[in-house]
């Protein structure tokens, strides 16, 4: 590949139409196997419910996670719901595609992607939409709604809730999805060099593992701070879940502290930077692509 596909310019392609066609086709496909679709919805939701039960049990013994962190039961369930929403968005729109990306590379079918007059990143990222995974997101929104209502009715908590907080929440969800998308894209791209990447789902599991809990739990010991630093500044997955959840749950009260504002600003920056970095990795990887088989 002497020229990156970007330079030849595919500006005329209507990306919105392409992506919405992908989404519609996947929906039609999903709807032709309806029983299977419903089973998949149930199975992905049951994992979420199990997670919920674990914390329901934990909160029988404690009233907050971490001393003076403010992550009481309802605050934490806002956090949990936020994670479900972000996870479900990634799994609906991207996971399956990234998983198939390594197949494209192994079989040489990536040739056909590169030949089309459209940005290959779009063609790699969007062709399949796994609509059943959206069920989890719905469940997450319900949990968030319920928990926020509980917090609002609690006279001891002075929760600030307005159109502004909802918009900010949505903005940071988008940022979170952007960061997670970039991490997975970069990981999937490495399969061009490594030849295979069967463990993409494993990687997803291990990386989400670090953003599943409020970041305060890491901020007590040297090793914890090291982890916090790594997953905030090197792979910024901690801000993905923590910032949107803090916007709604306000565990340390309102107004926000200075460090919360700076982390929120950083989350915006991290989203942009990781998109750019993953784009760079993707194009760099494409340059080393040397087709396969036929």
């Amino acid at each position, binding site marked *: 590949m002497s020229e990156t596909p970007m330079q030849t310019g595919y500006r005329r392609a209507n990306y919105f139409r392409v992506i919405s066609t992908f989404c519609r086709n996947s929906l039609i496909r999903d709807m032709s196997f309806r029983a299977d679709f419903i089973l998949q919805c149930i199975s992905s939701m049951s994992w979420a419910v199990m997670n919920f039960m674990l914390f329901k*049990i934990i909160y029988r013994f404690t009233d907050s996670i971490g001393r003076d962190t403010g992550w009481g039961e309802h605050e934490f369930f806002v956090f949990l719901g936020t994670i479900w929403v972000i996870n479900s968005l990634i799994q609906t729109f991207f996971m399956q595609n990234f998983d198939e990306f390594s197949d494209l590379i192994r079989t040489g079918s990536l040739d056909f992607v590169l030949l089309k007059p459209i940005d290959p990143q779009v063609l790699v990222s969007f062709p399949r939409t796994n609509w059943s995974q959206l069920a989890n997101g719905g469940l997450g929104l319900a949990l968030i709604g319920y928990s926020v209502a509980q917090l609002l009715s609690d006279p001891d908590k002075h929760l600030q809730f307005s159109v502004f907080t909802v918009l900010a929440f949505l903005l940071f969800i988008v940022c979170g999805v952007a960061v997670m998308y970039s991490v997975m894209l970069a990981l999937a791209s490495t399969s061009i060099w490594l030849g295979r990447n069967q463990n993409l789902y*494993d990687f997803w599991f291990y990386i989400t593992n670090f953003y599943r809990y409020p970041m305060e739990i890491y901020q007590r010991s040297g090793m914890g701070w090291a982890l916090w630093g790594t997953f905030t500044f090197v792979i910024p997955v901690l801000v993905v879940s923590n910032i949107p959840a803090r916007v709604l749950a306000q565990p340390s009260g309102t107004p926000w502290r200075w460090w919360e504002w700076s982390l929120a600003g950083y989350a915006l920056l991290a989203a942009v930077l990781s998109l750019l970095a993953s784009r760079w990795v993707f194009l760099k990887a494409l340059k080393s692509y040397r087709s396969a088989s036929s």
Partner: protein
Amino acid sequence: MLAKVQTWWTFFLIAVNERLVYRGDFMLGTLMRFLPTLTQIFLWWAIYDVISSRPDESLDGKIAGYRYGDMVAYYLMVTITRAFSSMPGLTSGVARSIRSGEVKKFLIQPVDMIGCLLVQRVAHKLVYYFIAALPFTLVFFLCRGFFLNGWPAPEEMLVFFLSLLLSFLLGFFIEICLGLVSFWFLEVASLGFIYMLLNFLLSGHMFPLELLPESPVNLRAAVDWLPLKYLAYFSAAVFLGKLSSEEMWRGLAIEAVWVLFFIVLARWMWSRGVRRYSAYGG
């Protein structure tokens, strides 16, 4: 007799060599498997930090009898028991071979399918322990401080090892039975999924069973009547000295009975299933 032993030995060797191919991947994968434990260490620390700071002394800094160290040690021990009892791909493998008709080869060869699968599984597990020993030792050495009681007594150690062996057999035969359901229903994936879910929750994989609520449904008592707790909780509890000598041996006996039950069930299902099997597919 000798020929039979030789047959099984060959099956065993093939399976061992099959597994050794990916040893590098394996070792890294094993280390990665401890990452969730790492975050759990932080999570539980944060929870115990709250509990120990509370003025009421009734809990004494414990959750359901577990101190912070016990809790982490419990999760570490569960990784060991799961290394024995988990059987990735067994149910789906049996189901697939029945559905695709591959199972025919066991009907014409003088080789027993369940026995063959057992030998292969033993081989895979042995290779796994051999390779995973290094990362496991490393992690347990780094985490030795969490084992507040130090090494268990010889008696507990003995019951622990016996229960691990039984948990391997129990996990194996439960999944074989689930797979053999394919003789009657073509699709067992959802059955396998339900099993996985219940297993995760009620075997003690997710948290120590003492944490289960007693109301509105007394799950705490219900798990004692299920075989699932022997797949994760029991061995860990024995190692951590949670059970009295009598409870330990009784638990071991019940586990043995469960193993026997599922062996007989698997045999019975196999003989019934083969009779109604119509051998379609290539």
